[in-house]
């Protein structure tokens, strides 16, 4: 048993950490967030140049076939810096779906760009009426000529505002809740009939709802087998959950460091407030939640690229449940420990808190994953 990173993994994490420290001060992040793009084009380029966007891809695409632990190393550090770039959407989720479902032509067409960072992918798997359930798909893809006509609406597509390619799920057959009959399509965001309603997000990024108004796509837009996308979606969402858990752990580490530092320097009644036992114990509780979260992020990373099984499903649901609860706990208690300053826009803590709570709304909240876990309970 060994929970340490290999030398290569440690080097990878150090590289990202250095880059984030150098380029992603909290002040700069606020500026990036306020641009139209909503993140730093320059930082994204650097991630590409350093080969970091290629991490999970094979050697011929400039990567080294990195698995869950490598993604974890990258995402943890991006989390520490509250980085806004669409690494999760484009590299992990988009790249993952293209790798798993795409045919040779499609991989040839897209993956090099995803791996280099030049092609940004966004993924729309959820819908307004579906409460985190990605198999609840009302959007339709109807056969027309050689291709399909897509109609419907995909909800809260993070990074969709600037994506070069959007992957959406739509139903080619079956009822709205059937796992069977869901298909994936790679669409050009600028195609006729694609309407994007763009908005900033609470945690400083940007996203959009994608409305599909009879969008015509060719047969080559279909990713994978028609009607059989549910397994791909579930599997790749699992990888994304593991990555998101790592990001959350990075956020929580930084949030706890900020709070601890504040307890030591803020004085009231003539002493640092960290001398008060009620605040000490709260801080210990926050550390303890972080440890639980860290354990689950490690476990999730180890299952991210494993073959699909109920054990993988349970583990990833458990991980997201723990991460969401820990993130909210650390956010709420951290703001409380900071007092008024924790409520301000100009101080970084609040932004960690916002990111952590919003992570709880990405790819399923803790109730969703608790229900999922409960449905997979084993009798003993």
């Amino acid at each position, binding site marked *: *048993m060994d929970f340490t990173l290999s030398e290569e993994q440690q080097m990878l994490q150090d590289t990202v950490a250095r880059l984030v420290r150098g380029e992603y001060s909290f002040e700069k992040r606020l500026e990036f967030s306020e641009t139209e793009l909503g993140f730093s084009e320059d930082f994204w380029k650097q991630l590409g140049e350093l080969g970091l966007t290629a991490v999970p891809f094979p050697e011929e695409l400039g990567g080294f076939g990195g698995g869950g632990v490598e993604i974890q190393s990258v995402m943890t550090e991006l989390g520490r810096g509250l980085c806004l770039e669409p690494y999760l959407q484009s590299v992990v989720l988009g790249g993952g779906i293209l790798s798993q479902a795409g045919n040779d032509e499609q991989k040839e067409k897209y993956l090099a760009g995803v791996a280099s960072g030049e092609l940004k992918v966004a993924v729309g798997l959820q819908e307004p009426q579906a409460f985190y359930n990605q198999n609840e798909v009302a959007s339709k893809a109807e056969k027309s000529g050689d291709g399909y006509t897509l109609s419907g609406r995909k909800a809260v597509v993070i990074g969709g505002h600037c994506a070069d390619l959007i992957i959406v799920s739509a139903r080619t057959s079956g009822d709205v809740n059937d796992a069977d009959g869901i298909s994936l399509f790679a669409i050009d965001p600028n195609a006729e009939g694609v309407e994007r309603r763009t908005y900033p997000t609470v945690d400083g990024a940007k996203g959009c709802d994608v409305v599909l108004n009879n969008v015509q796509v060719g047969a080559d837009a279909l990713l994978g087998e028609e009607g059989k996308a549910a397994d791909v979606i579930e599997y790749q969402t699992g990888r994304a959950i593991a990555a998101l858990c790592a990001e959350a752990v990075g956020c929580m580490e930084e949030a706890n460091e900020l709070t601890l530092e504040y307890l030591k320097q803020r004085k009231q009644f003539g002493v640092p407030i960290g001398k008060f036992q009620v605040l000490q*114990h709260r801080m*210990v509780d926050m550390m303890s939640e972080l*440890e639980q979260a860290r354990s689950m992020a490690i476990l999730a990373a180890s299952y991210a690229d494993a073959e699909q099984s109920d054990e993988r499903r349970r583990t990833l649901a458990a991980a997201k449940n723990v991460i969401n609860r820990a993130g909210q706990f650390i956010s709420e208690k951290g703001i409380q420990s900071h007092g008024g300053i924790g409520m301000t826009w100009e101080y970084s803590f609040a932004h960690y808190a916002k990111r952590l709570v919003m992570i709880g709304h990405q790819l399923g909240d803790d109730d969703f994953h608790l229900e999922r876990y409960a449905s997979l309970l*084993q009798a*003993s």
Partner: protein
Amino acid sequence: MNMNYTAEELAFRDEVRAFLDEKLPADIAAKVKGFRRLTKEDHQRWQKILSEQGWYATHWPEEYGGVKWTPVQKHIWDEESCAYGVPRSIPFGVNMVAPVIIKFGNEEQKQQYLPRILSGEDWWCQGYSEPGAGSDLASLKTRAVRDGDHYIVNGQKTWTTLGQHANMIFCLVRTNTEVKAQEGISFLLIDMNTPGITVRPIITLDGEHEVNEVFFEDVKVPVENLVGEEDKGWTYAKYLLTYERTGLAGIGLSKAALSHLKQLASRRLKNGKPLLEDPTFSQRIAQVEIDLMAASISNLRIIAAVEGGGVPGAESSMLKVKGTEIRQAINDLARRALGPYAIPFVEEEMSYDYEGDFLSDENAAPLSSQYFNNRKLSIFGGSNEIQKNIVSKMILGL
């Protein structure tokens, strides 16, 4: 990053399983798994089997009859023994006083006491807490005054677990009142049969006789029963507490309790369906199982760090808090799973020999009691609040 056992570790696990398959008495395992009462004889019978296997003293150096297990091997033993229903080892001799004697005792003490612990001849209990000294242990008042070749001991110890079975007690006593509280404490080994010692039961809220008060009235203790130096007992006491704290998170016990809970929940019905399939109850179980999954990985992380040469530090304190909360949550659910049948207090059904009809479920009778009894988990071994103080000081630097 590797969460798997090595081939050697897997072989060890097989060895443990084979041993338990062959040697663990079925009646004892059934009692443990059904949360029935164990007798002194049960404990002694099992200890003898373990001793014969050479697996009783896993913290001791080999020269004293211990077995050198790695942290991972100890973990494997913990997981397997909990799953099989091995009785919890009574730690006061083998895991508490023995490490102190080995580290700080003289040669005569090692010769005299260690073999008797291994053989089960001596049953030790712990004389730490006093009515006025709980979390603030250093404020203890039991006095030992030197008189020639003896100490004369006067005072009172309390919460003495299974003291009714013990023939030996290790005590923290005050030998110096002139200095700071921590600096006037000594570590004495006392024969429970010495005149002047009285043991009185304390009946706990579940009706059990598990803990006792021990009174000392002019008890003559030979000076050779002093461990280490006079007035240095606090150092030894703290050393002992680090041994007490490891394993207090009870991850293996929680896993066994959870498995028991799920079996119970698959038998109990609500709306005509097993509780395990009830939306509310299954989610309660799911939540505690998820939390246990996280805690068990945290536990493995600590074990792997120790295996790699680290020292278990305040991280164990954090895990003790989490682990005991989880076990209490499981006990809570087991009680809830009984519905109104959590209410009857049917003592005869708690006995292993009971042969009559069960009022509700064969495992029901002890569950409410167990829930109340295990409120102790967050109190003993350093209350969870004390653990948080330790983390706050040692890790956070507050």
